[in-house]
């Protein structure tokens, strides 16, 4: 029953998403900078404020305490979490037709889980595996041409879009092997706690890595909400483009008419 409800919700969200962002063509260009509408800006701003308060009371203090841990401990934790995320990245590599990357990431996962002691040591990188890049179901939907839909701010989880939120539901529908072995199936090796602890640690790890950047951004923003929205959407656009060449993702048209010399 739970799965049917989730599947229906995703179908509804995707349908809303397509109608919100389709104007007769689905532009797959990497430079597609079609404006993402902030359809629920009023609610989003309230949620954003709520998240900021929550962050100030809970996440930021924990992240600051986490930063006190020795660097190797933080690095090991980050590596282990990255290793777990490969369980979502690999199926998305396949769905995006990136079979070579799927193979490389599978090899990386096996090496790091075994030789690297459940991913604590990134042995794969040391023996020459290429840099790891995370993928998720929201990105895969984007690569398939599904528009982002409206921008939303989720309570606790933060910035997202309708497409990315819908994509993350795929994790709960069997798309994340770690979720499957901890929550969905009773494997007797892992418990629900393992999944929730890993998710919470992942959030704290991300927050700890970005404490200075966030503080700096907040201090120098006149509209912090708008800055975060812009950065989130640019980041997603770049990740969906799957390109490291900066010239592939930047839109030059707005610059062309600015003449000062």
């Amino acid at each position, binding site marked *: 029953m739970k799965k049917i409800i989730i599947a229906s919700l995703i179908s509804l969200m995707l349908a809303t998403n397509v109608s919100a962002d389709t104007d007769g063509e689905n532009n797959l260009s990497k430079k597609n900078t079609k404006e993402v509408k902030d359809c629920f800006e009023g609610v989003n701003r309230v949620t954003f404020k709520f998240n900021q308060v929550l962050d100030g009371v809970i996440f930021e203090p924990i992240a600051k305490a986490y930063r006190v841990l020795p*660097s190797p401990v933080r690095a090991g934790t980050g590596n282990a979490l990255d290793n777990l995320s490969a369980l979502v990245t690999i199926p998305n590599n396949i769905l995006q037709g990136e079979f070579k990357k799927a193979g490389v990431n599978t090899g990386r996962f096996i090496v790091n889980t075994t030789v690297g002691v459940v991913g604590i040591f990134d042995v794969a990188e040391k023996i020459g595996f290429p840099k790891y890049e995370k993928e998720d179901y929201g990105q895969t939907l984007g690569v398939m041409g599904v528009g982002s839909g409206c921008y939303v701010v989720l309570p606790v989880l933060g910035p997202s879009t309708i497409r990315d939120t819908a994509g993350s539901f795929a994790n709960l529908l069997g798309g994340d092997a770690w979720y499957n072995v901890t929550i969905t199936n009773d494997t007797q090796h892992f418990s629900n706690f393992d999944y929730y602890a890993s998710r919470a640690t992942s959030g704290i790890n991300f927050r700890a890595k970005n404490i200075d950047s966030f503080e*700096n951004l907040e201090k*120098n923003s006149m509209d912090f909400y708008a800055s975060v929205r812009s950065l989130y959407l640019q*980041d997603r656009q770049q990740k969906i483009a799957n390109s490291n060449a900066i*010239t592939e*993702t*930047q839109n030059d048209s707005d*610059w062309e008419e*600015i003449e*000062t010399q």
Partner: protein
Amino acid sequence: MRLKKFLIFTFIIINLVGINRSYSMEPDVFVQSTVNRASQALNNKYSKEEKIDKLKQIASETVDINGIGYYTLGAYRKDISDNEINQYEMLFEQYFLKSFSSRLAEYSNPEIEVISKKKLNKNYTMVSSILVGTGQRPEVKIDWRVYTKNPENPLIRDLIIEGLSLARTQKEEFSSIIQSNDGDIKALFSTLKEFIK
């Protein structure tokens, strides 16, 4: 006599061309020299205030502040009066210098290495660099949009950090402030004044 005149003429032309060449600057060399200056300014021997003053000086000489200001204003710049444009230029310059120097002053002894450049067209070259990682922070990829219409005086127009454009972020922030105030540009001016106080 004719030969002498010809030689003098040729000598002058060669020198003029030579002088012209000596003043033009490759965008990657320009960026490296700018970041070297910024690195020196961020040396820990200076106080935070001294660092900010030095960074403001460097930005005034190497960044196209007016160009970024126009870009940041987006389509609104076409709808406002000359008087408002002048007011905006003045406010934006102060805002930019404060915001820019305050953001960078947090770093100490950053090491940036220019790695490549790509000419986009006659007006723009993208210069790629990396902020070398340390024990405290990972390596960061920084790209520089350099305005090269006048090759003798290249100017920075945008910094793209790990794919995130600072100019675009600023533009969307300004747009949000104007839109939240029913398209009133004066609301942006008030916010800018508040920021640069």
